[in-house]
């Protein structure tokens, strides 16, 4: 079985498609916007951001499984303290794509989602951007990625693995439950993005 490896810049095209598939509506509503002078697309933003190493959407923060020269699965892990360089690089990825004050709307939307996607606690590793290419689904890749992130959490001395998933994403929830995640909280997005209901899941380590 192919192993989990760190992503690199060459993975960008496949990887971004999978990251987008992990939360298509949320990422679209966060990052696609039309202003008087510019038309911004979530996909274009993510391609630029992923090609950089650092930051929330940078390749350096992602893990992938490659099969037959294709990126079959992707995921990442966030913790309470990601470091100053990470925050700076995430902001830079946004300010370099969104022109002038247009970035303020994106930042405002990110902030509006904080009650839904809460910052991980110090003892948690929060799993995100989990995507498996359609051709490789139901082959255990999601569990393989989660197992990798779980061992990362152990190494980091964390006590919980957590994640947020859309309530109607039955396939993903099924995989998470089989891996030992439990629903522990329900959150509702009340922002202008109207993303609907999410469930917060947790696995104690």
């Amino acid at each position, binding site marked *: 079985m192919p192993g989990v490896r760190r992503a690199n810049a060459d993975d960008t095209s496949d990887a971004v498609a999978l990251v987008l598939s992990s939360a298509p509506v949320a990422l679209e509503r966060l990052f696609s916007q039309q202003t008087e002078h510019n038309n911004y697309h979530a996909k274009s933003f993510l391609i630029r951001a992923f090609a950089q190493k650092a930051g929330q959407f940078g390749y350096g923060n992602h893990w992938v499984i490659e099969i037959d020269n294709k990126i079959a699965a992707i995921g990442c892990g966030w913790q309470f303290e990601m470091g100053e360089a990470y925050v700076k690089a995430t902001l830079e990825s946004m300010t370099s794509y969104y022109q002038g004050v247009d970035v303020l709307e994106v930042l405002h939307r990110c902030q509006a989602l904080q009650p839904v996607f809460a910052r991980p606690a110090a003892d948690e590793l929060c799993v995100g951007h989990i995507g498996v290419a359609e051709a490789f689904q139901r082959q255990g890749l999601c569990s393989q990625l989660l197992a990798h992130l779980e061992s990362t959490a152990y190494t980091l001395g964390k006590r919980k693995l957590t994640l947020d998933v859309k309530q109607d994403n039955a396939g993903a929830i099924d995989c998470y439950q089989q891996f030992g995640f*439990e629903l*522990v909280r*329900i959150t509702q997005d009340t922002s202008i993005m109207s993303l609907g209901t999410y469930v917060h899941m947790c696995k104690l380590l």
Partner: protein
Amino acid sequence: MSRLSVALIALVALVIGIVIAINIAPPKGSEVQYIKLYPQARALPEFTLTDSDGQVLTNKNLQQQWTLVFVGYTFCPDICPTTLADLSSIYPQLQSIDSQYPIKVAFISVDPARDTTERLAEYIDFFEPDFIAATGQHADLFPLVRAMGMMYSNSQSTDDPNYLVDHSSSVVLINPQGNVIGRFKPDFTSGKVPVSDSKRILHDMSILATE
């Protein structure tokens, strides 16, 4: 008695036996469908909680009865009130199951800082006064909840008076020996608040409690 008479009596007995078997014996296929049974029953650690009447509640209080246990907290905005309302809606039917042991429902609060005895009493009475409600110290609660196969944690600082508590939304089943035997997981397919489906609980309890 002639051979024919003996044969006729045997035949009649056989027919009567078949009729009884079809009409009186329990129908085949009445097996539990929804509960996730643990590979083997798990003993619970010794615990001492306080119930909503201010009385001590220990392992002994969960023996000689079937107990459906749900953990949560009274300030919970969604999972707890939905689950308790659902459980109270099937409670009369649970009580009418012809079981050797009574079937009880217990709500264990994992938020002892805010869930005082008085608050617990008021809360549980709203749903069903017969439900057991109890809480205790985290030193008792945490190992008990873990042994049941569930979890809880304070995801936010308790400095904020409106803090939320993360907790499992399953309903677990304790057998008359006081051991946990399995759990009903939340149902995500309904599009509503994902809690354990009370009709499924009722279906399986009518089989488990009469075996």
